């Protein structure tokens, strides 16, 4: 019984991180129409940077959050303005743009990954932060796990409120539903698309910081998280933040249960969920 509880809580804690990763991708694909294969690389960059800051300069990972988030936001915004904006201008239709932008994102993935390999090498890195055991519902968990979960939830909630309550947030939602009409209402679409890509990158890198607080990181960790994010986004329903959280929790739970039974099969289980879902409900659980 205690073991079961432990497995479930582990799954939920993992799910919070998965959700955060997926909200970012959902934004990039749902609004900016970029299936960002390089999404995981921003997670990796966040994680590796945090490790480097912590080991070389003793900068706290919490401070790294405040450094990596804005940096990734700026980098993502710039990448959209220079690379994806040009692809969008040249593409005769959104369908063509989706294809081209995915290929460009593939290229971006290799570039970012190789820069990281040159800078930090291929070794698996880790550091220990707040790994003090804490009693939680009768089980023991690292304080770092609980902290990262809380931060992931808080960021998700803050972002949800941003989209629903602010002028810019509403412009993002309007642009997702009908970009041309949003433009006629006064929304600068190119700005909104670049902002969405930047925000997606920022959430990925923040998730990377949080991941590095609990798990080892390395330069080629990105793709696995990209795959997870894609599965969660499809599972929850594209463009739905509550959907991303629901999908993240489900995948986290499944992952933790399967890992408990047979550690090697977690990724296989993810793919099985993905395929079954595409067959039964391709719009996702909360998608329309």
């Amino acid at each position: 019984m205690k073991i079961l509880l432990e497995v479930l809580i582990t799954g939920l804690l993992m799910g919070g991180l998965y959700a955060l990763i997926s909200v970012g991708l959902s934004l990039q694909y749902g609004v900016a129409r970029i299936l960002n294969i390089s999404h995981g690389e921003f997670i990796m960059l966040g994680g590796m940077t945090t490790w480097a800051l912590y080991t070389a300069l003793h900068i706290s990972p919490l401070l790294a959050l405040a450094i990596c988030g804005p940096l990734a936001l700026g980098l993502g915004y710039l990448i959209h303005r220079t690379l994806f904006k040009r692809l969008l201008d040249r593409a005769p239709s959104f369908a063509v743009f989706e294809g081209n932008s995915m290929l460009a994102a593939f290229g971006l993935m290799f570039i970012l990954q190789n820069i990281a390999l040159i800078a930090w090498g291929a070794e698996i890195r880790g550091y220990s932060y707040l790994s003090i055991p804490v009693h939680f519902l009768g089980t023991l968990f690292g304080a770092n796990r609980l902290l990262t979960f809380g931060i992931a939830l808080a960021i998700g909630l803050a972002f949800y409120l941003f989209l629903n309550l602010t002028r810019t947030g509403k412009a993002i939602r309007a642009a997702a539903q009908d970009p041309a009409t949003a433009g006629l209402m006064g929304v600068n679409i190119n700005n909104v698309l670049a902002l969405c890509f930047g925000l997606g990158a920022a959430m990925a890198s923040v998730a990377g910081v949080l991941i590095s607080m609990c798990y080892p990181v390395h330069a080629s960790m990105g793709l696995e998280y990209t795959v997870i994010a894609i599965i969660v986004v499809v599972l929850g329903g594209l463009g739905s933040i509550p959907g991303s959280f629901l999908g993240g929790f489900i995948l986290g739970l499944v992952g933790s249960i399967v890992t408990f039974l047979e550690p090697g099969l977690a990724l296989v289980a993810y793919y099985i969920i993905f395929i079954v879902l595409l067959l039964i409900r391709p719009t996702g659980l909360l998608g329309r």
Partner: protein
Amino acid sequence: MLEIRDLNAFYGKLQVLWNVSLQVREGEIVAIVGSNGAGKTTLLHSILGLVRPASGSVTFLGRRIDGLPSYAIAEMGVTVVPEGGRVFPEMSVRENLEMGAYPHRAWERRKEALKYVYQLFPRLKERERQLARTLSGGERQMLAIGRALMSRPKLCLFDEPSYGLAPVMVKEIFEIIQKIREQGVTVLLVEQNVRRALEIADRAYVLENGRICMEGECAELLESDHIKKAYLGM
């Protein structure tokens, strides 16, 4: 207020507008009428920055606006009620209206504007929290008009406002367009329903095959043989 000179525009390689010139003076309702495929929508889109004209100019309040992006034109006080409404389906009625107030000069005073729009369309107030996709066709059209008014426009374009609506609804929409003009908003109306359009407008331009073939006071146009034969079925 709005002046278009010698406008030529293409759709792909096909020329859609040929040397179109027209003007709209402050406080007027001007109609652009013509059959399907005459180039009405392309003309509207060149005013709104959605189509880049090949040559010619569009001037609004003395400033060239051809070549400007849509959002900049919206900031200047030009708004549109698009064909079919084009409301944001996954946003509530209220949020749709708030999106109308997106331009900076309108955003600060959006609460006031909201009151005015709800007064004009009590039905929108009742459905404030409903998602726009659950509205009927007529209600969507009202929402689109309300959204346009939220921007405190100087010039409001209407793209086929009667299209697909029941006759009762059409009558209501046209009454509202007149009311909007009384509030000081200049109106440019694009319509296939030629009779209705000529009844409420001051002046009209007739667009055929991408060229303006007739223009003048609506009362005169309604008496012309060509209009009677080609558009009014008389």
